[in-house]
């Protein structure tokens, strides 16, 4: 209580210092939340890719994917060590292409329900409705990811247009914080139709919709590593095919994750520096202002240790208050950005308890450490000299 009163008597200076630290903490919270989201995204992908190999030609994300033939699936299935190979057709939900979103774009993905022969380990819970089954093969039905369902504002039983074709929503997945949140999952045949329709007419005429895939998901047999399978596929199909395994995915996105951590560390260091110096300054002035008070306290029996503790605690309180303010503003900002972004499918922030706790501990620790120097100075004051100080 006394502590808060002591802060109160230097309102402007304390306010400025607290504002400074609060801004740093706010930045920490916002970027930390973004990093959480990114890491969840990358982590989810990493988990998904971990025990399989994905075969494609061209790059899925740049949109210039070239179709594979279903005969490739049979070729791969005959490879020694392959337990299952199942075709998929993936495309951007937007027919205009050129996704403007950060994170993962909204996608339509089609595959044969049960085509994984039960080998898929990346399981997604349902929030409502049901999964697709083999009986849906020729129907225009879809299961939507949580973010996509929310953006389209649909529920199970509603109709939804995917690339101008009406689908019935039969299920909605629970949030995974990763790519499937923005996916519309449809039966393979429906995806094949949509995909062919998106191709230039000249090419369309040369393709049989039911014979194409954009990717093949390959599940190795137990005890066979995806890397081994990758080599065998490459040997069989040649250089035009891209085979991606969990290792490739991690190598590709691990660096992305590292850059993010670096930015975060940079922000932390910057707020450490600015907030720390500002706190040292505030507390040094507070000590100077209270020189006589420290003198009287020392004279009537306050030990040096006690004076030090007083200054450090007050300094830590500045940090704590700033941390709480920064956290509240940061949390408000991430919520606001997420709400704004939801319209366009950009939910970029995930504020976790860990991030919040880190921010508070960081701010309080910063305050306490910054208090050490002025505290040391205060404790070394000669009581008599301090008493005479004007």
């Amino acid at each position, binding site marked *: 209580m*006394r502590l808060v009163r*002591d802060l109160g008597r230097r309102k402007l200076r304390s306010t400025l210092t607290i504002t400074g630290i609060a801004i740093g903490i706010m930045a920490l919270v916002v970027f930390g939340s973004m990093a959480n989201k990114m890491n969840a995204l990358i982590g989810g992908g990493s988990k998904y890719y971990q025990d399989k190999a994905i075969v494609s030609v061209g790059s899925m994300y740049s949109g210039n994917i070239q179709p594979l033939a279903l005969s490739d699936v049979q070729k791969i299935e005959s490879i020694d060590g392959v337990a299952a190979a199942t075709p998929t057709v993936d495309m951007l939900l937007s027919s205009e292409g050129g996704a403007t979103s950060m994170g993962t774009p909204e996608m339509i993905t089609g595959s044969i329900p049960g085509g994984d022969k039960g080998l898929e380990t990346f399981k997604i819970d349902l929030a409502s409705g049901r999964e697709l089954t083999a009986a849906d093969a020729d129907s225009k039905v879809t299961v939507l990811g949580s973010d996509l369902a929310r953006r389209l504002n649909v529920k199970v039983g509603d109709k939804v247009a995917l690339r101008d074709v009406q689908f019935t929503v039969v299920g909605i997945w629970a949030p995974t914080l990763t790519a499937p949140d923005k996916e519309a999952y449809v039966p393979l045949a429906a995806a094949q139709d949509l995909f062919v329709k998106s191709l230039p007419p000249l090419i369309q005429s040369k393709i049989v919709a039911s014979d194409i895939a954009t990717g093949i998901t390959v599940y190795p047999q137990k005890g066979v590593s995806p890397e081994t399978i990758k080599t065998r596929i490459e040997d069989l199909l040649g250089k035009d095919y891209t085979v991606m395994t969990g290792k490739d995915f991690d190598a590709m996105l691990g660096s992305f994750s590292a850059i993010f951590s670096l930015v975060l560390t940079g922000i932390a260091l910057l707020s450490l520096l600015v907030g720390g110096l500002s706190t040292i300054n505030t507390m040094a002035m507070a000590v100077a202002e209270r020189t006589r008070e420290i003198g*009287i*306290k020392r*004279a*009537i*029996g*306050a*030990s040096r240790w006690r004076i030090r503790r007083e200054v450090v605690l007050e300094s830590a309180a500045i940090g704590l208050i700033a941390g709480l303010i920064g956290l509240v503003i940061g949390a408000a900002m991430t919520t606001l950005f997420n709400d704004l972004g939801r319209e366009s499918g950009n939910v970029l922030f995930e504020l976790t308890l860990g991030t919040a706790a880190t921010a508070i501990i960081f701010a309080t620790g910063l305050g306490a450490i910054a208090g050490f120097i002025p505290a040391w100075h205060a404790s070394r004051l000669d009581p*008599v000299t301090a008493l005479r100080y004007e």
Partner: protein
Amino acid sequence: MALLEGSNLRKTYRLSKRNTVEALKGVEISIEAGEMVAIMGPSGSGKSTLMHILGLLHTPDPNHGPAPELRLAGENVASLSDNARTRIRARRMGFVFQDFNLVPTLTALENVLLACEYAGIKGKVARDAAIEALGLVGLADRADHKPSELSGGEQQRVAIARALVNKPEIILADEPTGNLDSDRSTEVLALFRQFNREHGQTIVLVTHDSEVGEACDRVVKMRDGRIRDSGLRTGTPVMAVPAATAPATA
């Protein structure tokens, strides 16, 4: 045995390499338990410096002349560590200064409680003692007032309550009435007198107000860093040789 006894007390302030002030030039002093003593002398004669040494706020200079000695109830306290001296100040001494005695952000009661806290007394015991001490100085009804809401005389009485609260062996006061008008002065002085009479509280008052001096049992007169008159009647055996007559050694 004297309660507080000092000999060969010297203090030189070093303002710069060349410029030094000899504030105490070898002082000998003895204070008996239960005494109320005034230390008087012109401004700059070394009264405060002596009080700071007696109150363990400063240590006497050890580096020239005969070794200084300072005994509190027989124990040599001249060269204790800062922590040990702080502990003695907290538990066995009470202090009143001329001004700025109180922490401005704390109420009267909290200011008094500060002394309890430093002496290691907490909780209800401390609270009761603090309220009692404020009652003794007639400020029970001002317990929750901040210093800024109290008059100068009231502030000094709070400071006295704080000096008293731990029932210390000795109270040292440096010009406690220096900033008060004569009526308030008389009140504050009467309080000291009362505690001395009724509780046998040992009190050392630094003052240049002769009225204060007259109210005390004994007046020690200082001039130019030395004691001119120990105030002891000749024949009193306690201090046969006042410091002033000792050979100058500086």
